[in-house]
């Protein structure tokens, strides 16, 4: 069957392209929702794409004392995020790297991206880079456990940590969506998404005050195409996280076979689901103030406890 691998490859290229354009569009959508909630007209939704195109043509600058780590980090971030996108079942239940489509692999690939950016922040040799790296690794150290245990809760319920398997199992058992372990894991994952994607209340992506920056401070030294890669990597990460939350908890609409109408439907449904979740995230962002840095561990510990409760509920309630 030579058509099947080709079809899978085609769907994967489509999926990668969708996340690479969809990530910036989601950022633009969230900015638009925020602007409207503030009563402004706001930039058009495609504005992040225009920003990326302009950045790609600018000059590359490296800080004088930096080493090879500084130009290497954006490449590692993009490669790791793209690999995670290739693994995740977003449009169809048969991603390109289906033989290695494990939930824990996605978690660790995202960690690889974070570590690369943190090392780049330290490589710049400035106080801002170190501050950003320190805060980002502190938050990551507390968000990682919650993410891992929430993913484990889903794996225990589905009987496997293979991502397509979890999606297919949820499709086969629709009543799982209302099960207590799913609900608890969803709450934990939503809090972790706020932390991993750097949104209010954890981090303000549009702040100008260096002392309030977490992620921005690490990328203060980047210019031109490397900045475009880092920004695109962060946008893809947000898109991937939102799409995974959508597909692991509400997978209806995903293409189970590789026929063209199913794939188009899958893409449309994915876009609608992630747009809805992104809108919800933006509304939550507008309604809350950013937390003090030393309050963030409290909210992340809450996410961890919720995730542990999800696992315990799953073990106790299983027939």
């Amino acid at each position, binding site marked *: 069957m030579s058509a099947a691998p080709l079809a899978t490859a085609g769907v994967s290229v489509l999926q990668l392209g969708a996340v690479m354009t969809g990530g910036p569009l989601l950022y633009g959508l969230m900015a638009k929702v925020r602007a409207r909630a503030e009563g402004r007209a706001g930039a058009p939704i495609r504005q992040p794409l225009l920003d990326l195109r302009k950045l*790609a*043509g*600018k000059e*590359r*600058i*490296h*800080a*004088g004392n*930096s*080493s090879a*780590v500084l130009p290497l980090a954006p*490449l590692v971030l*993009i*490669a790791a995020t*793209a*690999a995670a996108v*290739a693994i995740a079942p977003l449009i169809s239940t048969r991603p390109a*790297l289906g*033989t*290695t489509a*494990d939930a824990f*692999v996605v978690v*660790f690939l995202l*960690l*690889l991206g*974070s*570590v690369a950016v943190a*090392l780049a*922040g*330290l*490589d*710049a*040799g*400035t*106080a*801002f880079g*170190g501050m950003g790296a320190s*805060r980002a*690794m*502190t938050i*990551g*150290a*507390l968000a*990682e*456990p919650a993410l*891992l245990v929430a993913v*484990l809760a889903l*794996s*225990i319920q589905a009987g496997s940590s*293979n991502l397509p398997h979890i999606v297919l199992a949820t499709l086969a058992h629709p009543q799982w969506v209302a099960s207590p372990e799913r609900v608890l894991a969803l709450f934990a994952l939503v809090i972790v998404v706020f932390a991993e994607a750097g949104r209010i209340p954890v981090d303000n992506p549009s702040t100008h005050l*260096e002392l309030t920056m977490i992620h921005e401070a690490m990328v203060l*030294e980047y210019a031109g*195409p490397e900045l475009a*890669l880092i920004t695109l990597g962060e946008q893809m990460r947000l898109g991937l996280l939102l799409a995974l939350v959508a597909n692991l908890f509400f997978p209806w609409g995903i293409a189970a076979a590789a026929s063209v109408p199913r794939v188009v439907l899958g893409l449309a449904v994915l876009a609608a689901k992630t747009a809805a979740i992104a809108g919800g995230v933006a509304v939550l962002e507008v309604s809350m103030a950013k937390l003090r840095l*030393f309050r963030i*561990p409290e909210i992340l510990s809450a996410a*961890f406890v919720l995730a542990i409760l999800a*696992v*315990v509920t799953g*073990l106790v309630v299983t027939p």
Partner: protein
Amino acid sequence: MSATLLVGGLGLGAAGALAGAALPARARVPAAAVLTAAACVASFAAAAGVLVSGGTIRVHSAEILPLTGVTLSLDPLGAVFVITTAVVGAAVSCYAAGYPARSMKSRAAAGLLPMFITSLLLVPAAASIATFMAAWELMALSSLLLLLTGHRRPEARDAAQWYAVMTHAGAAAILLAFVLMGAHAGGQSFDAIRAYASGLSPAVRSLAFVLALAGFASKAGAVPLHVWLPRAHPEAPGPVSALMSGAMVNLGIYGIVRTGDGLLGGGELWWWLTVVALGVASALFGALHAAASSDLKRLLAYSTVDNMGLVLIGVGASGALAVGGHAALAALAMVAALFQVMNHSAFKGCLFLGAGSVQHAAGTRDLDCLGGLLRQLPATAALFGIAALSICALPPFSGFASEWLLLQGFLRGFSAHSAATATALLAGVAALALTGGLTAAAFVKAFGIGFLGQPRTPAAAAAGEAAPAMVAGMALLAVPCVVLGVIPGTVMPLLARAAGTALGGAPPDPLRAGSGLAIAGSSDVVQPALLTAVLIAGLVLAWALVRVRVRARARRTEAWGCGRELQTARMQYTATSFAEPLQRVFDDVLRPDRDLDVSHLAESRYFEDALRYHSRIDDAVERGWYRPLIGLASRWGEVARRAQNGSMHRYLGYGFAALVVLLVVLA
């Protein structure tokens, strides 16, 4: 054939020790290095033969140790540890050949290092109580003496004291356990003990296990018996600390597995739940202190405590599942634990060798004084970086493969439907998850502050690259970090055989064949080779896209500092400031010791002359448990001193009273 290789290897090691002690100054270090490396190669070959064939090498000689003879028996379980030690030993020999410190070139050090490595190779092969204890003591004494090569420094003497007391207390506990097991066994070989073990009463068996656990867990660095580790490993010279963390702590794990699963035949559930509890405590404690430490080698030592905690969780889970009758699940957990042992030795050995190079080049281990070493020591820094990425469990390196296997072991273990085991596994999962994040923070700090950025002191700016032999030693350990990460499936059948030997019986193979990791009987699979290919393709494509769009080279200019006129290296974050948010979050556990000295000007108390702030994080267990115990012991000693008042008459009186009591008792 394999027996000859094994005995030959041990003989070559002894020859290396002799060469190091006897030869003149120029020749002794290279000769010892060559002979020790040959010993490691021979032992590796013998152990590999055992693992591939699944058989056992048995050697008995009645001549070497009088009264008891020497009994060696290398089965697949011991072979895994011999292979690990052989690779680390070969790398360390190569490194030591180029290590420039004067203290390691003396006759004592050059002779003791091969002896240490040989004893590390001997312990997993020992098959009788006498051989085992002889090898164990040889290992302890040679490492203690190597630690004392730095005896001019008070910290090294202090560390040696702690190490000596704790390792010998542990050896006493182990010996007592063996005596309890073997007292009526009719022979002191492990075979005889195993045959007799079912005849012991449960109370004696449990007591023996608890004693053996105390001794071996102390060697492995399990909380609360770990306090020697963060003192001894940093003070030891570079090659010695790599051996201690990369090979010696493994033998603690080997001892627990051999005693619990092998000699005592599985045991009871509460034994293994205790092991899991020790593992959880060690993992969390070690990771936390590593994240908060600004001394490079102390950070690595606490990270060893953390990793050994994870291995203990795996071993405990395996034992608990075996007691419950789930042989396949137990085998999976044991394979995961053994794989973590192998990977930890490779990357921790590489990290310690790198730390040794850094300490020698820059003159300090304090991360707050380092920086910019990627430019000064490029090869050492690159290899340190590979090992650091591996210990953070990042794909595609070996740490990721073993962490994935551990997670799968826990995930499968939940299906065993036993409440106690499930609670233990839940604690294990929580510990694994928490330590993952803390380890990443610790090693971003170690690599980022130590090697990236600008040098914070002139000493760091003047550091030079290490000798080629030292870099070659590190490279030898970095290769398994990459290879075992990309094709972990190749060693899985060997580890499954070792797990089968450890647990007894012939459990089914927990993993399917292939270069990746695929759990038998489920759809959980990961192909790191494919992932690596995708990652490299992604890197190359992204790089090509950048170069196509902007052909000109990057402009080098001053770092952006808000336009300030003067930017210095002192303005960078230090390791202490990097760890400060985490330290604040865990303040209740860490309880840093803070001191502020303010001196005022003579003219007026309102003007300050100098401020001195001192902050130190002590080991919480040492502060909370050991210091009160030591205080109690010294107070008791003070009381007992009153009996020694110097009067000859009183001493004669004591002797007379003891004689009278003895006569009364005997009569």
